């Protein structure tokens, strides 16, 4: 269990929201334990009231009673907090969490009675005194019930505190995810509005209008859809893959109209992957790169292949373009860096984005992300 005060900063989010082992700080629990120990001390004082108010009894006797109790509870709580088993088990559903914690109760309650009364008898015996209490037959059940009730109350407090901490942390994390998405949208919009793309597309429409109004209309509509998608994708953090593929098709259609006869785009979308949730606008910057380097900077007829396949628990989308090669000095642009960052915030190490030279020429970009454990 990593307790890291910097864990809430961008860059140290190891897991998805749903599955993260929480990284709450334990310090609020320590305060809680201190408060709890104080309560126990008061109880101990009340319990030993008889001894305190009897002048013939030496003061070490009530002191022994109080310290044996608070000492035992203190050690117990310290052990509890160090073991971190409260935070290791998911808080949801609450019943399961309580049952999990209560498994320890018999051992803890018995241990409590044995240690507290063992200590007291031992200290009294060493001092040559006699420690009197209820007969064992009545005392043990009473003490066990008392310990159990107090332990349940303690667990309730721990649960409440942890829930509060977790909801706070989730709020912060959600903020981060949303921030990353907003950044992606912005950069996406900038890319969309990348002047060359926009003005050249408008010029294509202007040209088509003269000869084929229906086609001109189609390009214009696609440009509209694409701009709208970039502006409005904020409503959902993830979208079904199909929706993302539709966006890619809009873009590819426009580019194919612009670079008529210079590019062939193939789509291989496996059965059943269309509903898999993916972060919105995660693929488009990759396709854009494929056009930018594979098509716009070459003179031949090139091919772009978009493929989506489903492994047992991973979705893999590849975009392969011919016509370009990654050089050794190649550096990732802002669009790709942004995609990578979003994948990391959402999935941690479970998602990857990889670019490499393809064995048959060209460059292949591969995005792999988990199907289970996708963000809510």
């Amino acid at each position, binding site marked *: 269990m990593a307790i890291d005060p910097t864990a809430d900063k961008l860059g140290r989010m190891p897991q998805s929201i749903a599955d993260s082992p929480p990284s709450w700080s334990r310090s609020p629990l320590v305060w809680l334990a201190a408060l709890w120990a104080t309560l126990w001390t008061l109880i101990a004082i009340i319990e030993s009231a008889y001894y305190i108010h009897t002048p013939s009894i030496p003061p070490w006797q009530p002191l022994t009673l109080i310290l044996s109790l608070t000492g035992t509870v203190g050690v117990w709580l310290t052990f509890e907090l160090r073991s971190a088993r409260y935070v290791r088990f998911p808080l949801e559903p609450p019943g399961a969490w309580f049952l999990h914690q209560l498994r320890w109760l018999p051992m803890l309650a018995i241990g409590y009675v044995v240690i507290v009364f063992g200590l007291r008898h031992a200290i009294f015996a060493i001092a040559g005194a006699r420690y009197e209490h209820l007969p064992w037959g009545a005392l043990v059940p009473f003490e066990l019930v008392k310990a159990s009730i107090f332990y349940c109350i303690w667990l309730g407090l721990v649960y409440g505190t942890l829930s509060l901490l977790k909801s706070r942390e989730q709020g912060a994390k959600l903020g981060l995810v949303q921030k990353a998405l907003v950044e992606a949208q912005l950069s996406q919009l900038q890319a969309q509005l990348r002047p*060359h793309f926009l003005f050249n597309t408008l*010029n*294509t429409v*202007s*040209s088509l209008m003269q*000869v084929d109004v229906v086609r001109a209309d189609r390009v214009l509509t696609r440009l509209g859809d694409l701009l709208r998608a970039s502006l409005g994708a904020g409503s959902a953090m993830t979208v079904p893959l199909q929706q993302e593929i539709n966006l890619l098709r809009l873009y590819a259609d426009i580019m194919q*109209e*612009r670079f008529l006869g210079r590019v062939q785009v193939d789509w291989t979308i496996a059965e059943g992957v269309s509903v898999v949730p993916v972060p919105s606008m995660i693929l488009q910057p990759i396709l854009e790169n494929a056009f930018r380097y594979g098509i716009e*900077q070459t*003179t031949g007829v090139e091919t772009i292949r978009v493929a989506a396949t489903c492994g047992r628990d991973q979705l893999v989308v590849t975009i392969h373009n011919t016509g370009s090669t990654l050089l050794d000095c190649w550096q990732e642009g802002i669009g790709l860096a942004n995609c990578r960052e979003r994948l990391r915030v959402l999935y941690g190490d479970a998602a990857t984005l990889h670019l490499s030279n393809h064995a048959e020429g060209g460059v292949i970009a591969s995005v792999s992300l988990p199907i289970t454990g996708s963000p809510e």
Partner: protein
Amino acid sequence: MIRAIIVDDEEPARRKLHRWLSSETDIQIAGECADGLSASQSIMRDSPDVVFLDIQMPGLNGLQVAAQLEIGAAPLLVFVTAYDAHALAAFDLGAVDYLLKPYDEERFRRALDRVRDRHHAPEHRRSAVLVARQQTGVSDRLLVPEREGLRMIDSAEIHCLEADDNYVHVHTSDQTYLLRRTLRDLLQQLGEQRFVRIHKSVAVNIDEIDALTPLFKGDYELRLRSGRLLRLSRRYTTELFHRTGG
């Protein structure tokens, strides 16, 4: 008749220009090119009067194409581009016109009227090429004909340049390219840094000079690293010694 070449890597953009240009009675479309290199080739081969030149293209971009043109014989240039306003600002001195995509027919006709006005005014062509050279800083590279096509060579690869009428022989370690240019124009394009004239019709790469041997009347024999022997004319000795620190 005004002969025009259309250069754009996007087919619809070419089609639009083609449509409007071909409706003009005094314009003849001499060719269409989809990239910078074939545009350079087409301009060299067909010597058009005007070139409608896109800037963002694969390989050689529009400005680089312009920078490689021979200054005295360059066609009129009309840049047609989506968003190179900063690059075009330099041309906005009336030297050349440009069309920003998308443009309408009225704007196109205005550009065409300017082409007609300047059709016989060579100074516009000259300044367009000069500005393009300033913009691209082209002195490191030279476009040379090779077999049927063209290729770019590094100006550092050039050993010496020899003028021959309206042509220049460009010698590298293993090749000689023949360019239809004047030596003066070529030296202007390649910059004065690397090359020095040693004769009315010969310039050498300063880094390639190996040895000088005095001859009669103040002339020298100049040997290049490649072993080639050339004559250094008396008239150019002062400049050479100054440039080489001798």
